[in-house]
């Protein structure tokens, strides 16, 4: 997938439940706890090193649908994969196409990443 200002590498985006996201939603979706828990991306350590992204550094994720900024943290994801907890930040990257099933592509979306 090529955009006009392509940053080069494609990553696979997975979104999903985390314990902190659950705890945050109990506090309220407008709470700091929820915001912190849902606005982050977990990346593979080698990938972060290669892209020059430091632990906690802000990055921009871009998909065909949109783009959003969040801090990056090392996580147990394989290379070329990133994980963002489910929530409004992740959902700004996910398009509404459901291919006739009702289910959008919450997992397996292609995204680009650049450090800010």
């Amino acid at each position, binding site marked *: 997938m090529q955009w006009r200002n392509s940053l080069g590498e494609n990553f*696979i985006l*997975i979104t*999903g*439940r*985390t*314990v902190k996201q*659950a*705890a945050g*939603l*109990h*506090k*309220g*979706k*407008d709470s700091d706890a929820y915001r912190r828990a849902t606005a982050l991306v977990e990346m593979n350590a080698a990938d972060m090193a290669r892209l020059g992204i430091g632990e906690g550094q802000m990055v921009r994720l871009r998909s065909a*649908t*949109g783009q959003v900024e969040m801090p990056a943290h090392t996580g*147990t*994801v*394989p290379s070329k*994969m990133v*994980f963002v907890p*489910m*929530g*409004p930040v992740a*959902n*700004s990257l*996910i*398009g*509404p*196409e*459901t*291919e*006739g*099933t*009702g*289910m*959008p*592509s*919450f*997992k*397996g979306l292609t995204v680009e990443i650049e450090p800010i």
Partner: protein
Amino acid sequence: MKTVVENVTCTFCGCLCDDIIVEVEDNRIARVQRVCANGRGVFTDYDPTPRRPIVAGREVEWEEAVSEAARILVQADSPLIYGLSSSASEAQMKVVELADLIGAIIDTTSSVCHGPTSLAMQAVGEVSCSLGEVRNRADFLIFWGCNPAASHLRHFERYSLKPKGRYIPNGRKDRHMVVVDVRPTASAKMADHFIQVTPGADFEVLTTLRALVQGKEIEAGAVGGVPRIELLELANRMKGCRYGVFFMGMGLTMSGARDYNVSELFTLVAELNQYTRFSVMPMRGHGNVAGADQVLTWQSGYPFAVSFARGYPQYSPGEFSAVDVLAREEVDAALILASDPVAHFPRVAGNQLKRIPAIVLDPMMNLTSESAQVFFPTGSYGVDAAGTCYRMDNVPIRLREVIAPMRPTDEAILGQIIEEIKRC
């Protein structure tokens, strides 16, 4: 005055653990025992203080809010009703009645969760069991595309991995657990074996397993990033166990082939029953999404993505599912029960909800209620509202009022809206 309420059911996830102990002091929750980190907030972060409903940003009396809600729904040409999965079946029954009355499209959170699982079950069937069969018999567990360590925290301890059972006298030691996922999760750390699959390749891996189970030869050295030898070993272990159980989740329903991923797994499970006993269970995410399926099905015939616009129920995922109708701007009003689609839908769909008049019933303000025309602060099921809920294995469990209610229930408000509409 302190009382201890036992056998309380936590409604956070499909586990519906019903052994929770709550200490109540002066009608406030003081202490909760046995609940997991995900469920604790259900009890401790809920403020049961009655609040007034909100219409267009102002606090109003209940009658005015009910009238406004009725007005919005009656005037709409194409209303959408969505959510259901965090309310008891009594409220769900009322909301389907409402949909029937006004000719609405009605969809539940299933469509963004296990809707593809329902599609798969409708295509090929589903061989399943209740959680007690897992406890008592299952010597082989495979968690595919799900992460109980994050989403269903007491699953391992209460139902699947750790408990002793009638035919599992040594608990964990008598079971073999495999986790299949695209990344090593916390659940994978607890497994005897972790298999990492390339994202989007679950279908190929499942097809390959079906072939290996049936004794066919595979030429490829690896499928979906998994070496053939590993897949062959898995196939043989599955055939050699006494009672195997797959648990599956969003890793299959949300990826690529979606319902085809699931139907391939369900077919594998059915075929394994030629060799031994095998079951599969979807890990239902919300506390009563299984109940939403049940109620909508028994009243209409179909589990989700239903339209009553013609005066009779029609079923069409992709056509009547909430994300699709919002993205295509086909609905002009919405009633959201016990759910937060603005938070959980793709942004385009969530934004559309902000543009049409919306009515929200929920114990707490959320991202959807912030932009809604009407917000009803109702009771929280299983805390200050009694009712019935369905566990991930479809076992119905009763919810108690742990504290005396000071708020109306979803069921009561929906009933008032229905009466108001009938008067119009």
